[in-house]
């Protein structure tokens, strides 16, 4: 495989694509949002259970390419236990990482597993794929869930 391509499709990404984590609808979510990329038809639904500004649980469902699916999957594993402020901060950092925003210093260490998405910046057409779940998560954070949960 070409090096640049290998950089995009790292083993972690292929793995999360094949066996996505937290791939289900949360029964007791209180925030949710649907993300849709009309250009490629990628869809993702993010579910959040937030208590005292702490993300107690997070999950997703949807369909999309390996990049978008792995991005959503990895995001859910990282956000669990974070505060909503930390989630917003991570979103900013992740966004800078995938767009290759030079104005910001990206601390790869701090990004942890998310650093596998650094290769995306070389593929302008795939930036939206990697960003979809994160944008949807932010929109879910902002609004109360309109989805009726099984708890009510």
């Amino acid at each position: 495989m070409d090096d640049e391509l290998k950089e995009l499709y790292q083993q972690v990404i292929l793995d999360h694509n094949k066996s996505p984590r937290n791939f289900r609808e949360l029964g007791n979510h209180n925030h949710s949002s649907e993300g849709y990329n009309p250009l490629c038809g990628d869809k993702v639904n993010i579910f959040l259970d937030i208590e005292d500004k702490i993300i107690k649980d997070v999950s997703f469902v949807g369909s999309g390419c390996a990049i978008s699916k792995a991005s959503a999957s990895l995001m859910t594993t990282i956000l669990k236990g974070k505060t909503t402020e930390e989630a917003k901060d991570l979103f900013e950092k992740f966004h800078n990482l995938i767009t290759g925003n030079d104005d910001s210093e990206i601390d790869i260490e701090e990004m942890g597993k998310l650093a596998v998405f650094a290769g995306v910046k070389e593929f302008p057409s795939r930036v939206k794929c990697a960003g979809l779940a994160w944008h949807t998560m932010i929109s879910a954070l902002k609004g109360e869930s309109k989805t009726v949960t099984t708890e009510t």
Partner: protein
Amino acid sequence: MMKDSTTNNVEKTLSFDVNKIRKDFPILNTIAHGKKLCYLDNAATTQKPEIVIETLNNYYKTKNANIHRGIHYLSEEATKAFEESREKVKKFINAKSNKEIIFTRGTTESINLVANSFGRVNLKENDEIIISQMEHHSNIVPWQLIAAEKNAKIKIIPINDKGELILEDFEKLISEKTKLVSIVYVSNSLGTINPIKEIINKAHKFNIPVLIDAAQAVSHFPIDVQALDCDFLAFSGHKIYGPMGIGVLYGKENLLDMMPPFMGGGDMISKVTFEKTTYNDLPYKFEAGTSNVADAIGLGTALDYTKNIGFENIQSHEKELLDYATEKLSKIEGLTIIGQAEEKGCVISFCLDNVHPHDVGTFLDFEGIAIRTGHHCTQPVMDRFKIPATSRASFALYNTKEEIDVLAAGIKKVVEVFS
């Protein structure tokens, strides 16, 4: 391909040498990601032969002027070349008169012209327009816009699992409320060649005019608007080896005559006062503003080029490619071809188990293979087959069996990585 048009002319087939033809297209020598370019995205746009590129160059070097206006040498030269190109288009689709050939920006603008002009005067509340489930968005949205304005309705001819129109349902949809049928000749996402003649005959029994979206047909087989008896026909230059930004609307003269202008401006008028404006004759009534002269002339050259190669040659070569690719791709495990119509053009849309089309596209790109992935501006087709997107390989006269081998090998690689 169409059964009635694949008669093999042995002599002409023998004279068709794809390697010689490839030399006409400079871009085919491109190296993409270190690999020889394998351009299989012809349904999106076709590449341009040197002779078309030269025409554009020459126009700006030797003829450039505004047309129908100046009395100077260059303006006359440009006007002459522009009108000669209209004549070429007329002959190419066998229209009766040059008045029936309107230059537009492309298929989309051509359809919008009919929707806005014909639609505006002929649609009233509760009237209906019939389209199909396999239309490109450009043959859906213009009708939705005018239908919303007029409180008219859009009726949809459904498609079966093979991706063919269900004609019995079409007949049921026709009523006295139907004001127009607008249908695609060849589906860009499924490859289906629709039985256009049959549809036109059925609609005409009820005096309903028919518009044909021929964007995906025009470079693959001959079109005779008089034999088809279609009322409107739209196509784009860039899908038949011509420049982008130029297209054609054919319309029967009597219909175009009674239609109001689509856009107002220069060239489309004969007299303007603040009290009243009289419009120019056909086709100029529909060509407001400075025309895309260079690209119209380039289109004329592209049509000449296609004609010189000959549709018998093009059809037999492309049918060979389609059959070869269908057989080759069908053998790949986990690959499903979407669109398996009996009458099919040079398009293979496919899905892979466990690999999203976007990933297929990116991987193939690194093999130098250009295909299209996504919904192909036909979201209702994707919904019909309950898929988010497909990968699509589409062929043109310069493609080879070797390229299909490269494609098949590339797909197998993708499957391996994701398994």
